[in-house]
């Protein structure tokens, strides 16, 4: 019965649009706490689901659900101070859309039905579009238009792909519920040709949402125009949801004996994404766009790792967790900079270490984290992905992968050093405060803790996913 909480959260989101701003805030905060309680209850007892023909707690789903829940709580804490500072005229749209967005993402992470997951992912697009649109400037209008149109068209292709999966079953005269679990059980009976076509459509469709190049064009615009807390949620939680859909479909393909085909595609798209991010990270004038390109890079790494399989697939899941934690902390910190300097341009920002010492430390720590330096988990995950690639004998691919990572690092280092140490005359507008720093400290600390201490339940979750993929990859 735990999943019924989701309906309450959804209704909360709707209610916010019709109540006073103050009560709306209260609902906003309470939704986050309810969501956390729901997540913990689901982890403790994953069988307790009312709509069990549509929803199911899978290991990968629960990992993503707990990321969403934890991030949302941190972002709520940040938003308390954010909303005080920014004085939105349409605050209800912000808080309401955030809660609706949360419920849509939760539905993605729990849904087992192949069509329902599509409905939920499209719902995430629709509920997050108002967040990008919140300032109603020319640029944010453009970003919103691109976001809605590109993602809707992309996801429509994924629906076609999902229909093809169903068709591959119909053709063989089999009749079973349209769930990922059932498809996995009968995977080797499905029609191979249609299944391949289906995977291409699904990869392109959900890949658009996940930010895989060359379908990524909406991502830098949307992430840079959205307000800080929203971009943290978009980057940290939404991209994972789209990945989940691809991951689950990939599983069916592997079980159907088409693993070679689907994994190759994932590796190719992954490498292209990292390449595009590397080229654009070298020449950037906007620090939020820089972070957005970093998201494209990391999604590429995750797709790559999943495609390689084995040890690298384990690394990819680890990467997903740590990327969410570190990237959302970076996006939240970038909002502090936006408050202080009033500009997203790197040239108009500088001397962060004197003017905003704590934010700058967080920024540098996040930068080291996202680039894969040791105290943070991304070091471990990228190491595992590289080891896995070498283990599979894909030496040339591994070399390209490492080279691209170095280029991305070079681009980032150039701009981060500029932001922190460049000369800047003049004063900052809004200084940093404790409430807008603590969430980032917590996010980074959790990333470090997860690297050094192994928690049995988390480890068993990830290795359950891994065992699955290792068995699959032989």
């Amino acid at each position, binding site marked *: 019965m735990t999943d019924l909480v989701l309906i309450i959260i959804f209704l909360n989101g709707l209610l916010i649009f019709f109540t006073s701003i103050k009560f709306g805030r209260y609902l906003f905060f309470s939704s986050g706490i309810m969501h956390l309680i729901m997540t913990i209850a689901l982890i403790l007892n994953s069988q307790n689901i009312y709509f069990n023909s549509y929803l199911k707690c899978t290991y990968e789903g629960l990992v993503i659900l707990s990321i969403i829940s934890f991030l949302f709580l941190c972002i709520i804490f940040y938003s308390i101070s954010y909303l005080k500072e920014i004085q939105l005229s349409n605050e209800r749209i912000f808080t309401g859309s955030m809660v609706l967005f949360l419920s849509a993402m939760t539905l993605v992470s729990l849904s087992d*039905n192949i069509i329902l997951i599509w409905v939920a992912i499209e719902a995430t697009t629709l509920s997050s579009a108002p967040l990008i649109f919140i300032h109603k400037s020319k640029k944010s209008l*453009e970003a919103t238009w691109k976001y809605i*149109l590109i993602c809707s068209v992309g996801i429509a292709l994924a629906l076609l792909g999902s229909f093809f999966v169903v068709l591959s079953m119909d053709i063989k005269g089999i*009749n079973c519920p349209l769930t990922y679990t059932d498809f996995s059980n009968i995977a080797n009976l499905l029609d191979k040709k249609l299944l391949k076509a289906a995977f291409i459509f699904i990869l392109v469709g959900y890949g658009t949402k996940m930010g895989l190049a060359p379908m990524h064009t909406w991502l830098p*615009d949307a992430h840079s125009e959205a307000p800080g807390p929203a971009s943290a949620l978009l980057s940290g939680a939404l991209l994972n949801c789209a990945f989940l859909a691809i991951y689950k479909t990939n599983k069916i393909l592997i079980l159907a004996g088409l693993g070679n085909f689907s994994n190759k595609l994932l590796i190719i798209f992954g490498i292209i994404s990292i390449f595009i991010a590397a080229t654009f990270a070298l020449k950037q004038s906007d620090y939020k766009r820089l972070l957005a390109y970093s998201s494209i890079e990391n999604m590429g790494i995750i797709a790559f790792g999943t495609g390689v399989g084995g040890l690298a697939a384990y690394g990819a899941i680890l990467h997903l967790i740590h990327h969410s934690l570190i990237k959302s902390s970076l996006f939240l910190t970038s909002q502090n900079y936006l408050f202080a300097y009033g500009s997203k341009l790197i040239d108009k920002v500088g001397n962060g270490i004197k003017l905003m010492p704590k934010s700058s430390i967080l920024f540098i720590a996040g930068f080291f984290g996202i680039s894969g330096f040791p105290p943070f988990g991304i070091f471990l995950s990228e190491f595992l992905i590289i080891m896995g690639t070498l283990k599979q004998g894909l030496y040339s691919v591994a070399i390209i992968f490492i080279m691209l990572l170095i280029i991305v690092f070079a681009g980032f280092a150039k701009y981060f050093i500029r932001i922190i140490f460049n000369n800047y005359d003049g004063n900052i507008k809004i200084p940093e405060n404790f409430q807008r720093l603590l969430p980032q400290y917590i996010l980074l600390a959790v990333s470090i803790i997860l690297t050094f201490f192994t928690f049995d339940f988390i480890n068993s979750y990830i290795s359950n996913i891994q065992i699955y993929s290792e068995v699959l990859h032989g």
Partner: protein
Amino acid sequence: MSNLILTLTVLMVLFCLGSSRLLSIIYLIAFQGFLVSVLPFFINDKITISVILFILVTLLIKSFLIPIFLYFVMKRITIKREIEPIIGYNGSVFLGLIIIIISIFIGNKFNFHINHHNTFLFPAGITTLTSGIFLIIARKKAITQVIGYLMMENGIYLLGLILSNHNLNIIEFGILLDLLVGVMLMGIVLHNINKTFDDIDTTLLKSLRDL
């Protein structure tokens, strides 16, 4: 009967590709929505109450709510015509014909042996879907792009009809709801684009780019 409806659907596609008046495209897509939503009546073997209910809701959304909404959005916009499309009208219709031929070719390649399956369903679906994507690419006005998206959804809906009945009606309502909310959001953004830029030309939206 189902063949007649499918032929009309494809005809609507060609009309849309050849039309420059924005208002008439809205009428055309409303009629196409009507055709597509009544099609299950003539294809399904068993007409149950849930099928009828589903058809009615589809009809309501695809051929009434969405076009009426777009009509009201259009009323507030001064621009009534698509001037200088990226690919001209005659060229578009010609490309539409080529798309039909290619779709029939692909349809022959995939030989589906499903009981109630109408052989013309697959090519018609592919044609509508591809032409929708083509409209999004080849036209500059934001409202035509929304129409292209709707046409694409109609094509996918046609392809979805190939599947045998899987009792997924509850979830199909979800798809329709997403479509409705999506188009409404697009309409709101479109209205705001018109207010800010005094036009709905998407080529004006170019301030965010790299390189």
